[in-house]
Each structure stands twice: as C-alpha cells, then as structure tokens.
C-alpha cells in the first residue's frame, strides 16, 4: 500500500540529526507539491479559510430564510437560487444546512486546526526538523484537495448537493430518501477526507512519539502539542469507523446492498439504526477531535499571556486524556430517542455526566492560571478568553441534553443547535482565530494589526453569543432544527422576532470577518516585520528559531531543559532580567543552581 511505500522511503532520510533535507528550489516543489510541514500547514489553512467563507455564507442564507421566510435572498439570490426566483426553496434549504454543517466540520475546522496547526505546531514545538513522514504529509493534503473537488462537483449535478443532514441518517440518505448523485458524491468526499485525516493522524502521533527533541519528555511538551496529539489518536481510532459507515452507505446506494434497509422478520434485513451506531461511535469522539486542539492552544495561551505557569499542567494534560478515553463510551447520548434499551440509555447518561468531571478539572485549571496573573490582553489572548467563555456556557447546556428526561423534550430542537454551536462551532471558531493571530508572526514573519484584530474579536464574540444563546431560547420554545419555515406553525409564530434578531446578529458576525480579511491580507504583505519572539514566550518555535523559520526549522536541534510555562519565577528574573525562560534556554552560571531547584517543584 502507498502508506507502506511512504513509510519505507522516509526510513532512509532521518538518520542522525545532522542531515537536513535540502531546500527545494523549483516553484512547484517549494510551494505546491512541497513536503515541508510549514508549507503544507499553510495550504491546509488556506483551504480551511476558503471553506469557512463558503460555509459561513451558507449560514447567512439559512438565517435569511428563517428571518424572512419566502422572500428572495438579496443581491446574489437570483443567481444562486435561479429555479425559484431567488427564494431559498425547501430543497435548497435542506442542501444548505447539510452542506453548511459538512463544510464547517470537515472542510473548515478540521483543515485549519488539525491540518494547519497540527502540521505547523507539532514539529516546531517539539524541536523537530519536519514530520517523520513528509511525503505522507503531502499526500494527506492532496487527498483532502481531491475530496474538496468531489464536494464542489456535487453542487452541480442533477438534483443538487447532498440533503440528508451532516449526520446522513438512513433512510433519508438511501436512494429512496435522497435519490440524486450529489448524496453519493458526498459519501465519497467524506471517505476521502477521512483518508486524508487518517494519514495526517498517523504522522502526528508518530512524530510526537519519536521526534521529540532530546530532553523533551511527554510532560515537557506544550499543552498545544498535547491537545493535537490526543486529537490525532482519536482520529486514528475513530475515523476508520466513519469510513466503515461510509462504505456500507455507499454500497447501499450504488450496489443495492441492504445494510440500512429494514427487512422482514423472516427474511432478515438491515437496520437503519445500525448506521446511527456507526456514525456516533465516530461522531462523539469527533466533537472532541474538533475542540481538543483548541483546548490545548488555550491552555498554553492563558499561561503565556497571564505570565504565569499553567496551573496544574500535568493534571490538565491527564484530564484531557481522560476526556479522550471517556469520549469513546458515551456516544449513546445521541440516540436516547431511537428506542435504545432504557438500561443502555441510563448507562450512557451516567458516563456522559462523568465526562464533565475531567472537563471541569481543566476548566478550573484555566481559571486558576488566570487568577492574579499579569494579564496581557493581546488579540490571541482575547480570542482565547472568548473560547473559555463560550465553551463554559455551551458545556453547561450539555447537561440538559445528557439527561434523558430533558433530552426527550430538547432532542432535535434548536437547543441542540445552540449547544453544539457554542461548544464546537463558536469555541473552535474562536480557537482557530486565537491560533491564527498567535502564530501568524511565526508563519509569515510579519505582525498583524492589533486594532483590526480587536475589532474582529468584538465583532465576533458579541454576535456569537447573541446568535447561539438565541438558538437556545427558540429551541427551548420547541422550535425544531432543520425546519424550513417555522413561521407557518402557529406554535412558533411568536418566535419570529427572536429568529430575526438571531439572523441580524449573524449578519453582524459575517460583517466582522471583513476586519479579519483586511488584517490577514494586509499584514501578510505589509505588516511590521516580526521579531523572533514577539510575545515573549517560552516554547521552542519562538525561542530557538527565526520568524519565519528556515526550511529545516532548527540549525541545531535544541536540547530541552524544562517545561513550557516558565513565567514569573523570581530566581530566573534575578538571573536573566526577564520574566520568562525558554524551554531550551541555559541560565547564566550564577543563580542557575538556585533557580533550577525552584523549577523542580
């Protein structure tokens, strides 16, 4: 198999730490078919940002229909919804929410946080020259690219793009429910995206295991790397389960097998609920896959910008690991209403509640890190704090969904949509931008504009809360999700003003992204030149290499001496005159002994 070949090829290139891959010179090898993790990271981030724009625009169309049911979509409506005179038709609405969810999860957040920052941060933060398998890494990106092409094609086939929701439950997703080719292409695209993610995951896990710089044990790794590593482990184990579901669904649609078609008792048959098992065995870990990189980044940023060590560093790392383990055994909470045996249901409910214990632990560690810190409200820090807030809020709403008795009422209402947007969409959205603003100087060698960044933050943070809390509200009022036009139901009529308020907030959020776009493009070319360590932090990529780093990252592989959060230690301050100490920074001889004893605690 190809991964075999790739693994084999790389086996030769990595002996001793002196061999530096020569920098490619041709344009194609350097910027397009590059095997450099930093270039691949940027490719993933570009891809993710483009799709975040597309998915975001779709959200605006959904919100338009909910606020102004039956009115033509302004400006581009006539072009996009040409068959229905600019009105979002019911079929188009179905495709819109399906593709919005799919794109945001698999083609925006996953590429940015995992493909992008996983690639960028892991080798740099552990002091490696590249991933262990650089070719596999490039292959992973191009697989994702193929997947996006298939997805884009699916919009232009007869009967249009997929329409069975991002969860694609049969029987809606069988050829009876959604006959078009679009749904089949969706299945293929997701399979390819999964293959890409799996290749990335194998690379990340192996890189962390084998390429940590000398002296960097697991508990000297920055929490960002912890988050990304745990993400990769969940990906490697659970993406294949999604793949199995996609294979069976594909066979049902194309070959005519019966896996998800209910049969008769005598003849035997498939089981539509089987798909839900397969999907959620993957799906629940998936929501942690999406948020874990964000948790990791935030755990580091809170410490960096409070100028304090991360409170309970080891506990945070272990609590996140515990969440990963538990995430594998709670998926049934998505299926309380499917006729699951009550005993199983109770079990899943208890296990789900138990997850909140480790989650609470690292959440409190975050707050402790902030407590009495010398907080610097930089743009990345603002976004990090935003994540903490919306994740906390969203996490609390999860308790109502984990409880069977309340879930029976809230299931499939906008309360669910509000809940998962707060925890998964809003939190990851803010986490992505925290990461982008934080690592931008290292990636592009230029600083972003703080004023535009702050405008972007406030234009994101406030509307995000209004939108998704609004959704919680209408959901509690009983309004179902995936509902084309709630205003035709007498019970939901009074919710129309709230829906209009949510939609207006969404437009404001969309408007706020203009600040980001200007900042991003302007700073990339005209921003102030970034110094090596503009944020005065401790991790290797800032302390031991230039901005941007050379092709081989480190001229000398650093030797790590301490953990990633060495801030405000009075002994160090006496010895060095600054309040932070790099992970590989040697102290001047005087005072080293005393200070070292201090860090040992």
């Amino acid at each position, binding site marked *: *198999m190809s*991964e*075999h070949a790739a*693994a*084999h090829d790389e*086996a030769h290139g*990595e*002996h*001793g*730490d002196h061999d530096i891959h020569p920098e490619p010179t041709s344009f194609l090898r350097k910027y397009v078919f590059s095997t450099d993790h930093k270039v691949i990271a940027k490719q993933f981030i570009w891809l993710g940002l483009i799709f975040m724009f597309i998915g975001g625009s779709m959200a605006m169309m959904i919100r338009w229909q909910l606020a102004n049911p039956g009115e033509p979509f302004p400006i581009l409506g006539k072009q996009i919804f040409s068959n229905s005179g600019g009105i979002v038709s019911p079929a188009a609405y179905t495709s819109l929410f399906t593709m919005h969810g799919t794109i945001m999860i698999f083609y925006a957040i996953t590429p940015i946080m995992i493909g992008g920052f996983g690639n960028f941060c892991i080798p740099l933060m552990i002091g490696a020259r590249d991933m*262990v*398998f650089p070719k596999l890494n490039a292959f992973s990106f191009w697989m994702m690219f193929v997947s996006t092409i298939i997805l884009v094609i699916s919009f232009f086939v007869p009967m249009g793009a997929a329409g069975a929701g991002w969860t694609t439950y049969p029987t809606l997703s069988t050829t009876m429910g959604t006959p078009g080719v679009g749904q089949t292409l969706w299945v293929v695209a997701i399979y390819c995206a999964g293959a890409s993610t799996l290749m990335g*995951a*194998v*690379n990340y*896990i*192996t890189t962390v*295991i*084998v*390429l*940590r*710089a*000398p*002296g960097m044990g697991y508990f000297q790794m920055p929490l960002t790397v912890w988050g990304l590593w745990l993400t990769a482990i969940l990906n*490697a*184990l*659970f*993406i*294949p*389960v999604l*793949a*199995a*579901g996609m*294979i*069976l669904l594909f*066979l049902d649609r194309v*070959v*005519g*097998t*019966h*896996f998800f078609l209910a*049969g008769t*008792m*005598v*003849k*035997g*048959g*498939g*089981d539509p609920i*089987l798909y839900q*098992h*397969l999907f959620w*065995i993957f799906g629940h870990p998936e929501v942690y896959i999406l948020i874990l990189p964000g948790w990791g980044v935030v755990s580091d940023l809170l410490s960096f910008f409070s100028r304090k060590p991360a409170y309970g560093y080891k506990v945070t790392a272990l609590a996140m690991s515990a969440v990963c383990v538990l995430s594998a055994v709670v998926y049934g909470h998505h299926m309380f209403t499917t006729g699951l045996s009550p005993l199983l249901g109770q079990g899943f409910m208890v296990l789900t509640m138990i997850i909140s214990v480790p989650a609470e632990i690292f959440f409190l560690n975050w707050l402790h890190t902030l407590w009495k810190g010398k907080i610097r409200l930089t743009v990345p820090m603002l976004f990090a704090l935003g994540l903490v807030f919306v994740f906390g809020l969203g996490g609390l709403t999860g308790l109502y969904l984990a409880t069977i008795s309340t879930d029976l009422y809230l299931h499939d209402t906008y309360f669910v949509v509000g809940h998962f947007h707060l925890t998964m969409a809003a939190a990851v959205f803010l986490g992505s931008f925290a990461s982008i603003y934080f690592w931008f100087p290292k990636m592009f060698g230029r600083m972003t504009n703080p004023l535009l960044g702050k405008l972007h933050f406030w234009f994101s943070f406030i509307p995000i809360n209004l939108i998704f809390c609004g959704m919680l509200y209408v959901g509690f009022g009983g309004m179902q999700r995936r509902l084309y036009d709630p205003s035709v139901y007498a019970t939901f009529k009074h919710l129309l003003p709230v829906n209009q308020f949510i939609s207006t907030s969404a437009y404001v959020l969309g408007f706020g992204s203009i600040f980001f776009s200007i900042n991003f493009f302007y700073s990339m070319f005209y921003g102030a030149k970034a110094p090596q360590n503009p944020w005065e932090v401790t991790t290797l990529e800032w302390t031991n290499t230039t901005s941007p780093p050379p092709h081989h990252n480190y001229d000398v592989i650093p030797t*790590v*001496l301490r953990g990633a959060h060495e801030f405000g230690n009075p002994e160090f301050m006496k010895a060095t005159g600054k309040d932070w100490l790099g992970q590989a920074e*040697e*102290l001047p*001889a005087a005072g*080293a002994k005393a200070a*070292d004893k201090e860090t040992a605690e």
Partner: protein
Amino acid sequence: MAAAITPPMTALQGYSRRKDTGPYVGMVIFLSAFGMCFAALFFSYSVVRTGAMSWPPAGTEPLPLGLPALNTLVLALSSWTFHRAYVAARRGQPVVAWLGVTFCLGALFMALQLVVWVSVYRSGLHPSSGIYGSVFYALTVFHALHVVSALVTILYLLPGALVGRYGAANHTAVRLSAMFWHFVDVIWVAMFLSVYVF
C-alpha cells in the same frame, strides 16, 4: 554552560534510539486504524445477524466451506513464508525466494476467492438479494482489497530483493510489509470463522 542543567546523556541516547523506530510506530498505528475499520464492519455484521430470525435467512443456501477452508490454509502458509523472508533478511540471507513464494500463495488465495465469488454468484446469491448476500460480498471484497494491496507491497519489494538490497542493516521495508501481511491474515481468520463457519 552550567553543569547543573546539562541533561543526562541518556536523554540524547534515547533521542537517537527513538528516531529510528518511526516506521514501525507508524505501521502499528495504521494497523490499529485498519483494525478499527474491520471491527466496525464486524460490529455491523453482528447487529444485522442478531436481528435476523435465522442465519442464513430462510430460503438462502449456506455458503460453501471447502474452498474457503483451503484458502485459510493457503494464507496461514503465506504468513509463515513471509516470516521466513523477514528472518532471512535480518540474517542477511537472500529473501527473493521466500518473497516469491509468498506472492504466489497470495495470488492463489485471490484466485480461489474469485472461484468462490463466481460460484456463489451463480448459485443466485447477489449483493442486492438480501442482507446475507450484502454481508458476504461486502466483507470478503473489502478484505480482498487489502490482500491486493499487500500483494502490491511485495511487488514493490521484489526488485530490491532480486539485487540483494535487503540485509541485516536494511530490512525495514520487509518488516513493514510483513506486518501488514500478517494483519490481513488475522482478519481473514476472523472472517472465515464468522462468515463461513459459524
């Protein structure tokens, strides 16, 4: 440089030792992932099977046993020959004969599998004729695709083996391919027992 904070030598040694294990670690993770995929397929099989009144469902003929049993032996033998190839590579002995035999056994497996598919198809059991056919074809074809990939890895090794490239210091590729081969064989045993026998 302060003596107190020089890392102990073992950190450096550990670093260079770790670096060489990359391909194996990567392979183990890949195989765990494939294992999860097969586990999900077996899980699906168990769900539809426990939901059926009888298995095979009434009116469906059971699958043939003879050829698949023979095929199990063929694969077991091929695992052994591949292991011999790996041992030979480690000892610096020629591997090409062992690899060649393994390849032939793998090809024989595919040929027999083809015979089984054709005869089952002729007997009227189609992928679309019910859940029994769905399970049979989906699982065996998916497994066979992995056998084909494993055969491709041998094809990839053979030219090097012919010129004697693999030896004590350079047997990583042979080992990786062997790991994959054994994995595919183990899956087959599970499949043989659950799809054909019981």
